[in-house]
C-alpha cells in the first residue's frame, strides 16, 4: 500500500459557507512532492472544486503563497518531506488578507501599496532612445540588487503584525521596492517617493519585528530596507526642519 499524508486544507466558498472550515485529504506521499503538487493532486483527483493560485511552479511568479502549518510559504517551494514528523500538514490562505475563496486571498491592498510607491524609474528628463542605455557600474547595481529580487508574493505581509493591525501600513514589500528605486543610480524619483516613506503609514509603522525578512523566499530582507528607509526619512525630516527655519514651506 502506498504511504499517504494527511493534508488539512482550508475551505471557504462564499456562496455557501458563513465561515472558513477545514477539510482533510489523504495524498500519496513521495520525497519530491511539494505542497503545490499535493494541492494539485487533490484538485485533479479528489475534489475539483478546490481553489488555489499558482502558475510557474518554480518560485518565480509569486502567486502560490499560503500558510503552511501557520507559516507563510510559497507552496511550490515547500515540500511535504519537511513535515514528515508532524501528524498532518495544514494549509490555509495567507494571513492578514481577506479570503476570496478556499486558499485564494484578496491581495489587492498589497498591490495598491506597491503602486503607491511608484516602483519604476523616474527621470526628470527622459533621454531619447537613440542616446542608448543608461549606463550603470556593477557597484551601483549592487546597492539595490537584493531589493530588486522581490516577486510580489505577499508572504512578508502575511508575516507582518503591523500590517495585520493596520492595512493602511505600506508594508515590507512596497517599502523595500521604494528603496530599490531610491537606491538606483538611474532613478531621480527619490524626492517624490519620500512623502510615502515619511508618513506614519510608511516606514514609521514598523517596529522592527523582522519576521518579514525571515519568511521572504527571495532573501530580499525587507526589514533591512525599511530600516535604511528610516535613516533616509530621519535625514529628510531634519532637512525639512532646517528649511522651515530658513523660511521655506513645510514639504
Amino acid at each position, binding site marked *: 500500500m502506498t504511504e499517504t499524508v494527511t493534508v488539512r486544507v482550508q475551505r471557504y466558498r462564499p456562496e455557501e459557507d458563513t465561515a472558513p472550515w477545514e477539510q482533510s485529504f489523504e495524498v500519496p506521499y513521495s520525497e519530491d512532492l511539494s505542497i503545490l503538487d499535493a494541492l494539485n493532486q487533490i484538485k485533479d483527483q479528489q475534489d475539483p472544486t478546490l481553489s488555489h493560485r499558482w502558475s510557474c511552479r518554480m518560485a518565480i511568479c509569486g502567486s502560490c503563497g499560503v500558510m503552511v502549518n501557520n507559516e507563510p510559504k510559497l507552496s511550490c517551494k515547500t515540500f511535504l518531506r519537511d513535515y514528515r514528523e508532524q501528524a498532518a500538514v495544514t494549509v490555509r490562505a495567507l494571513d492578514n488578507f481577506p479570503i476570496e475563496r478556499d486558499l485564494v486571498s484578496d491581495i489587492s491592498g498589497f498591490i495598491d501599496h506597491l503602486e503607491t510607491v511608484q516602483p519604476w524609474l523616474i527621470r526628470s528628463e527622459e533621454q531619447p532612445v537613440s542616446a542608448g542605455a543608461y549606463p550603470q557600474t556593477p557597484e551601483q547595481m549592487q546597492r539595490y540588487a537584493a531589493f530588486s529580487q522581490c516577486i510580489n508574493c505577499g508572504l512578508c505581509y502575511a508575516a507582518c503584525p503591523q500590517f495585520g493591525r493596520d492595512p493602511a501600513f505600506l508594508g515590507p514589500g512596497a517599502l523595500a521596492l521604494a528603496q530599490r528605486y531610491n537606491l538606483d543610480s538611474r532613478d531621480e524619483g527619490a524626492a517624490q517617493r519620500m512623502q510615502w516613506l515619511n508618513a506614519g503609514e510608511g516606514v514609521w509603522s514598523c517596529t522592527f519585528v523582522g519576521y518579514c525578512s525571515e519568511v521572504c523566499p527571495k532573501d530580499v530582507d525587507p526589514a533591512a530596507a525599511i530600516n535604511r528607509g528610516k535613516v533616509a526619512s*530621519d535625514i529628510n525630516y531634519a532637512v*525639512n526642519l532646517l528649511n522651515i527655519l530658513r523660511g521655506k514651506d513645510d514639504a
Partner: protein
Amino acid sequence: MRRSHEPVAWSLFGAGGMLLAFIGPGLVLTTALLPWLAADDPQATHAAIGALLAHPLGKLLVLACVALPLFHTLHRIYHGLHDLHLPAPRLPLQLLCYGGATLLSAVTGWWLLQV
C-alpha cells in the same frame, strides 16, 4: 499621507542606543565597579567624580548619559506595549513614556546645575 514626527523619537532612541552600546559598559566599570574593587582611596574617587560634575563638559556628558538612554528605553517600552497589544489609547501612553523621559531628563539637568 501626513509626515510623521516619529523621527524625533527615533533619533533620540538611536542616539541613546548608540551611547549605551559604546560607552555604557565603560561607564558601569569606571563609576560603579572600579571605585569598589580597585581604588584604595574612596574619598579621592569621590573627589574626582565631583570634579567631573563641576565642569560644564562633564555635566553635559552626564546629562547625555542619563537622558538619551531614558529616551531609548521608554521609546522601546512604548512600542513594545503596542506590539503586546496593550489595549490603551496612544496619547496617554505617549505622555507617560516620552513625557516621563523628558521630565526625568529635566530633573537630571536641574540637579547637575546644583552640584
